[in-house]
């Protein structure tokens, strides 16, 4: 059961409206762009171009994708692509990344928003992110053939920035059971776990599998989480086996996450 949902996202300097319906495309290449986005306004045109770009990258990579290819895949002229993205390929790529991040976050919002306890929020968030990322054909092509394009955005300081963004986004979904600082901390920690297992997969744990992720969350994450004392019964204590109660701990002394 998936509702239609709409959201706005900022792309570069402008704001773009996106309306999504139905499940996200598992791969941009097979995504029936034209059927879902009948030409209407400028933002529809941008979305078509963005999806066409994803399809091209999934096929031939970033280096070999030209704006002509994108125009052809989007079924429009090169001039239209330039009108939609006056900054050319760089501006287009910024928009592609922003759009895909927003799509991921929106899908996670639907999943995590529907969860009724803390364990479920974490499991649905982790599996949702893992499935979408591991099924992303454009990203898979780049990681395999042009890692130098992707990895600089995912490592060291850039990884820190990514963690800060993810935790700021995900924390409110944990806020029913955790105070704000703890929600930020746990979101950041969970994002690390996801990125580690996706970056260096292991045979013993499939991050897209509910049972595997539930095991991971119960074993390593929930025992390290301090649940609000007034949280709903089924939220914290009940999800942790009785012998493995959450351990209240003192975190960093400064207000966590807010400095970044």
């Amino acid at each position: 059961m998936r509702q239609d949902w709409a959201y706005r996202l900022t792309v570069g300097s402008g704001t773009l409206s996106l309306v999504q319906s139905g499940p996200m495309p598992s791969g941009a290449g097979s995504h029936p762009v034209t059927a879902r986005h009948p030409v209407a306004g400028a933002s529809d045109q941008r979305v078509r171009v963005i999806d066409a770009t994803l399809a091209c990258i999934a096929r031939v990579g970033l280096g070999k994708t030209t704006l002509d290819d994108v125009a052809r895949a989007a079924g429009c002229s090169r001039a239209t692509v330039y009108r939609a993205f006056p900054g050319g390929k760089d501006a287009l790529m910024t928009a592609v990344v922003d759009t895909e991040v927003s799509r991921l976050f929106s899908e996670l919002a639907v999943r995590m928003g529907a969860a009724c306890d803390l364990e479920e929020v974490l499991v649905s968030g982790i599996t949702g992110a893992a499935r979408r990322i591991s099924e992303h054909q454009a990203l898979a092509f780049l990681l395999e053939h042009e890692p130098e394009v992707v990895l600089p955005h995912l490592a060291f300081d850039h990884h820190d920035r990514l963690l800060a963004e993810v935790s700021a986004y995900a924390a409110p979904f944990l806020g029913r059971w955790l105070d704000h600082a703890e929600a930020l901390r746990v979101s950041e920690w969970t994002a690390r776990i996801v990125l580690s297992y996706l970056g260096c997969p292991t045979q013993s744990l499939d991050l897209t599998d509910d049972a595997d992720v539930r095991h991971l969350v119960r074993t390593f994450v929930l025992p390290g989480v301090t649940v609000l004392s007034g949280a709903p019964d089924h939220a914290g204590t009940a999800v942790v086996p009785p012998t493995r109660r959450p351990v209240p701990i003192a975190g960093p002394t400064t207000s966590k996450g807010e400095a970044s």
Partner: protein
Amino acid sequence: MESGTRLRILEATYACVARWGLSKTTVEDAAREAGLSRATVYRYFPGGRDELVAAVVSWQYVEFFTRLYEEVLDAASLEEVLERGLLFARRAVLEHQVLQKVLQTEPEVLLPQLTLQSNRTIAAIATFLEPYLLRHPLAEGVDVHEAADFLARMILTYIASPGHWDMSDPGQVAALVRTELLAGVVAPA
């Protein structure tokens, strides 16, 4: 362990990388710096520049984790290994001038190389941690291999990207180790 002429070439290449970066370092530069002929460098690194650069990254990577290993070797407990290791490794990353420079100027060259090493590193750290885990009272049902793998992953991520944690503060590192590394691994006190 690198030794002899091969080590000499790697050291010379490293000196060139420190000066000019990974992309601009050539076999000629490395040979001149080492006081060897190009032919000798090619004998040790038949793949030329690419192989040399990959070898120097790999060598420095191993050196880094060897220093980390030596730093924590005499630690008495699991907690101490993790706390001392994290404090030391994060400081070493920040103080590693060549690493920092290359991360700023040529991340697209360095990071694919580092990523290739990550899987092996996780396995190596996990193997190192297992004896400490075996000596420690663990939480019910915890599998030692699984816990060691999880801890190794966490160590790698905090070393490279501390997020909101101040990894120069021993108090914060201790809190980090108690919560995000060990809360589910060790038996509740």
